Structures are given as structure tokens and as C-alpha cells.
């Protein structure tokens, strides 16, 4: 995957570029808004990681300009600003996701994976399947190996999100943001408890465990 990194803090930029390359991506970098915009408009990237505050041209302005040119490249904002107001501004300006510094690298990787996947949405799906687990989005029913699994509405949404990102790491923060629409960190890790309950419902009694915990990162659903 080709990724554009626009970051003026060179130390942070070096770290980002190295980490992404280690993860197997092809990375271009820019240290100011104008260069970043020029690169974004001239080459096809799968995703752009753009800092909110940049010299020469602000991150918000870069993204607004890109969208004005009809460029719909997925964009992840990085920001060191305080969060309350800036997330909304970032998403309004055309960003697809927003991550506040300091962040965990696994969080960033999981999010750009999700962004790149979002870019190529196949036709509107009404059924999701992972292994022998099936989710019918129309009838709102889940079955595993033909057996109906009884799910609460929120558990259904949780499973749906995991299955839409099957084979990808999904972090706790991503789940909180997408399934519960909360942008804060609960002091206790409540998500873990929700996941273990869901796991008990879909994996109990089966040899193949579909819902896996990825240590230090989050969760992933996949058929081995």
C-alpha cells in the first residue's frame, strides 16, 4: 500500500515512516502543507496521514483543498491539539478519521487498515460471513453452523463491526468510537468484558475460535 505522511516534527515523521515501512507499506513523506498537498494531488496514495498543524499550509486547509480538487483519498488526521473541539473540525474539513497524539502505533496501523478497506466497498452487503459464522443484516440474525445465536442489539452491532473488518486488527478505541460512539477512554476496560460475553456466545462449544485477542493491540475475527 502507498501511504503519504505529512508531518513537520521530523522525529515523529522518521518514526512513522520507519514503522509503516516495517509493516510493509510504501511511504512518501512531506514536512509542510504545500509539499504535502502537491504530493497528494500528483500521486495516487491509498491513504494519507496528515498532521493538523503544519508550516506553510495548515492540515485542515490541505485536506479542504484536496477535497475541492475532487480527491477522495482516505485521510487520517494526527493532532497534538486538545481534543474536544478539534475532532469535529477535522472531520468537517474532510478527514476520515482523527487520532490524537500521543498514539499507540498499533492503533494507527489498525486505523489505516480500516481506512484502506473502506475505500473499496464492494456492493452493499446484506450478509457477512466468517468461517461458519453468518450474519444476516436484514433479518438481524446471527447463526453459527446453522445454529441461531441470540444477540442483544449492541452485541449485534459489535459483531457486525468485527465481521466487516474480518482479518483486521480492531482496537478497543475503534470499537468504542464505532459501536458506542464514545470518544473517551473509560477508566476500566469495559470493552474487554463485552468481547468476552460475545465470545462466549459465538465460540463456546466450537473447536475453531473465531474471535481472537491480539495482545497489546485489540481484537480480530477470522476463520483460521
Amino acid at each position, binding site marked *: 500500500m502507498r501511504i503519504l505522511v505529512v508531518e513537520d516534527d521530523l522525529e*515523529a515523521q522518521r518514526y512513522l515512516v520507519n*514503522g509503516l515501512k516495517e509493516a510493509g507499506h510504501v511511504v512518501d513523506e512531506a514536512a509542510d502543507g504545500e509539499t504535502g498537498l502537491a504530493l497528494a494531488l500528483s500521486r495516487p496514495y491509498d491513504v494519507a496521514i496528515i498532521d493538523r498543524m503544519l508550516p506553510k499550509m495548515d492540515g485542515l486547509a490541505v485536506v479542504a483543498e484536496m477535497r475541492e480538487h475532487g480527491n477522495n483519498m482516505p485521510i487520517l488526521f494526527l493532532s497534538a*491539539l486538545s481534543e474536544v473541539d478539534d475532532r469535529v473540525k477535522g472531520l468537517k474539513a474532510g478527514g476520515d478519521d482523527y487520532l490524537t*497524539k*500521543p498514539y499507540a502505533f498499533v492503533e494507527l496501523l489498525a486505523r489505516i487498515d480500516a481506512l484502506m478497506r473502506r475505500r473499496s466497498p464492494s456492493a452493499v452487503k446484506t450478509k457477512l460471513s466468517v468461517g461458519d459464522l453468518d450474519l444476516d443484516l436484514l433479518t438481524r440474525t446471527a447463526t453459527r453452523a446453522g445454529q441461531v445465536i441470540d444477540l442483544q442489539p449492541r452485541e449485534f452491532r459489535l459483531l457486525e463491526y468485527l465481521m466487516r473488518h474480518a482479518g483486521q486488527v480492531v482496537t478497543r478505541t475503534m470499537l468504542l468510537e464505532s459501536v458506542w460512539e*464514545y470518544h*473517551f477512554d473509560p477508566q476500566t476496560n*469495559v470493552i474487554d468484558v463485552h468481547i468476552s460475553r460475545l465470545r462466549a456466545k459465538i465460540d463456546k462449544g466450537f473447536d475453531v475460535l473465531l474471535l481472537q485477542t491480539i495482545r497489546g493491540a485489540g481484537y480480530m475475527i477470522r476463520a483460521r
Partner: protein
Amino acid sequence: MRGSFFRHWSPGLLRTQAFRIVLIYVFVFAVSATALVGFTYWNTERSLDAQTDQIIEVEVAGLREQYQRLGLIALSDAINGRVAQHGSGLYILVSPTGSVLAGNLTELPSSAKVTGRFVEFDYQRNQQGQDVTHTARGQAFFLTGGFVLLVARDVSERRLTRQLFTTTLPWSVGLMLLFGLVGGALLSRNMLARLDVINRTSADIVAGNFSRRVPVTNAHDEFDALAENLNRMLDRIERLMKGMRNVVDSVAHDLRTPLNRLRNRLEETQRRLGPQDSYTADIEAAIAETDRLIATFNDLLLIAEADAGAARGRMTQIELTAVVEDVAELYAPLAEEKNISLALAPAGVVTIEGNRSLISQALANLVDNAIKYTPAGGQVGIVVAETPTGIDLTVADSGPGIPEEERERVLERFVRLESSRNSPGTGLGLSLVAAVARMHDARLTLGDNGPGLRATISFPRTPQRKSRSDIREPSVPA
């Protein structure tokens, strides 16, 4: 403009201070003006009467002397002489047999009112061929030989003046009161309108719109002076707020950047080390410590932002019961795992103006605390209740609670009780809840649940945008 002109003719006008002052002033003015005019009239009449009496007495003395020195004929002559001068004097000299000897009165009055040494009586006077009743005041006495002499002066005009005065005085007082009231109403309406503008502007500013200013007219009066002073104060507050926002922003930026580098380097090192390396555990601990530092920092920033009113712009109508249900649902499995019953008391639809994200976070903090400190088998209850003054959101648990003397202290930043020193948390949870409450014009109170802690966020009934009547109400003591 038209709308605002008529808006002030409300029953509320009677309750305004300005109108009351005008009312009292008009009343005092009417009473004192009436008293003044009355006294002047009474005094004038008295001195005029005294003057008349004096003239009569002088005349009587003169005529009596004439009679004593020169006799009856001379007296008659003198009387006729005075009558011929066409003065305002009235005279009649009657013989003991009743015949009129001299004077311009046709007969002695049949009845008279006696006031002291004087009499007042009515007599007929020919005016343009018609007999008209006039009033006169004079002195009558007997001369030696049985003659009666009456000397008087016409006082009809003064009686007429008095009549005029007594009939017109109530009218003029009435008119004075009427004009006073109309003037007072106009004056207080005008004052009210201008005060209202100031009130509404300040309410707007309290709600977080710091760019609002009180309009200044061209009248250069006290209200303009007040408005200018208020605006100067607001400029200053706005500058301070902006300064604070800038500090918060730059502190956020300048601390997050090195924290970011620190975390990045630690993660990089962690990646380079294999899972079996002996330093891996240390690096992991260092990352966890960094994350705690970041969490504390984020909580502090959020408290600062909530107190700076920065998030006020994103207040919307939110359904409080739905927000509460969502948080309860988020924590239900956690409570169940600890064998704690988490109960949400059913409530109707309750809407408040607020920030969903911040209220959720505050409530999550309270529920998190409640579950953390309640022993297994205990209860945690969440209640949304309408009270006479607003809406109470209460989280009550059956844990150890907080001693009464510590309850105020735990709302301060970083205060953690000895008993919880070693459990996870930044020590900012309750301060954050209190800050979010303050931002919503609400109050966080900690109470005894006997046993346990009872944390209540009391939202006012009409948060933020106050209606006009709410602004005026406090200035009018019931």
C-alpha cells in the same frame, strides 16, 4: 423595533423598579402640590378677609364719629356721598320705625350668618335689569336713638373664586396623576427596554457567546456609561479567555509532541526487542506509565476546556434518559461480572441542553467509580428524576461511601482518598464530573446513600438559554 416597543407594555411593567419609583414620586408630588396650593389659597383668603374687615371697621369708625359729632343728617349725607362714589361699599341706615334713611341696600337682610363681630348675608343686586343674588360681609350696629347702621362689602367674587377653586382642584390633581402615570410608564418602559437589552446580552455571554456586546446609543446617558463599562469589562474577559484558550492549546501541543516522541521511541525499542528479551517487561511498564501520564494530562485539559466554556458551542438538545441507558448498557456486563446489580430506574423522556459526549463521560466516571468501590453482591442504581428546580441525575452505590468531611475535598483535582490510593485512576474523575456539571450550569453533590455514596448532578430546568421571564424574575422579589 415595533415588536420590542409593544413588548414592554406587559403586566411586568407594574413590577419594575422604575415604574414604582415614578408612581411614588407622582403621588408625593400630587400631595405636596395640593397642599401647597391649598395653603396658599387659605392664606390669601384669610388675609383678604382681614383686609376687608379692616376697611369696614375703619368706615364704621368714620361713620360713627360723623354721627356722634354732626348728627343723623350728616351721617345720611356721608353715606349717600360714599354711595355716589360707586365703590364696592354697601350701606344702609334704617330708622327705628324700619324706613330706610340712606344707603344703596334696599332693606336690612332678613337672615345673616354671624362670624365674630361680622355678619355675612345675601342681598339682591340689579345687574343689567336682572336681580342677582350677591354675598356681602359687614358690620351692623345700633346707633343711639334706635337707628341701625349696616356697613358691608361685596365678597361675591371671592366666594366665586373659592367655588372655582374647590371644583377645579380635584380635576387638576387628577390630571397631574394621569400625566404622571403616563410619563412614568413611558420613562420606565424606556429604561426597561434598555435594561432588558443589557440583561439579554449578559445571559448570552454567560451561555458562552463571548463576542456579544451591549449596544451603546447616542444618548450619552448613564445607560450608555453602564454599557460602555460593561463592554470594556467584556473585552477584557474575552481577552483573558482567549489567552487561556491559547495557553491550553499550546500546552496541549507543546506537551503532546514530546510525549508522542517518548511513546514512539519506547514502542520502537519494544518492536526491536524480541518477546523473550529481558528488557521487554520494563519497556512495557514504561509504556503503561506513559499512557497513565497521557490520561492524566488529557483529563486535566478536558477540565480546563470545560471550565473555559470551550465546548459550549457544541451543546444540543439531548435525551438524557437515552444517554443514561447507553452508559448503563456499556457497564452492565462489568457489573454482572463483579456480581453487582446495576439498576436503572425507569424514567420518562427527559430532554436537556448539553454535550452528549461530555455528559456520557461524566456519567461513565460515576458509574465506573461506583462499580469499582462496591463490593461483590452490592447494588448500583442510576436514577433520572425531575425535581421542582430541574433534573437530577443520581448514581448511588452500596460501597463504603465517602466520609462527610472528605466529600468537598475529593472534588478537588488530584485528591484521592487513602483507601483508593492504589487502585487505578488519575484522581481526576470526580473533578472532571464537577467541571462538566459546571459547564452545564449544573451542580455535582456527594451525599450519603446509607451505606454508600450518592453522587447527584442537578441540572437546572432551562439550562443555558434562559427565557426573558427567567431573567427578570430574580429582580422582582415575590
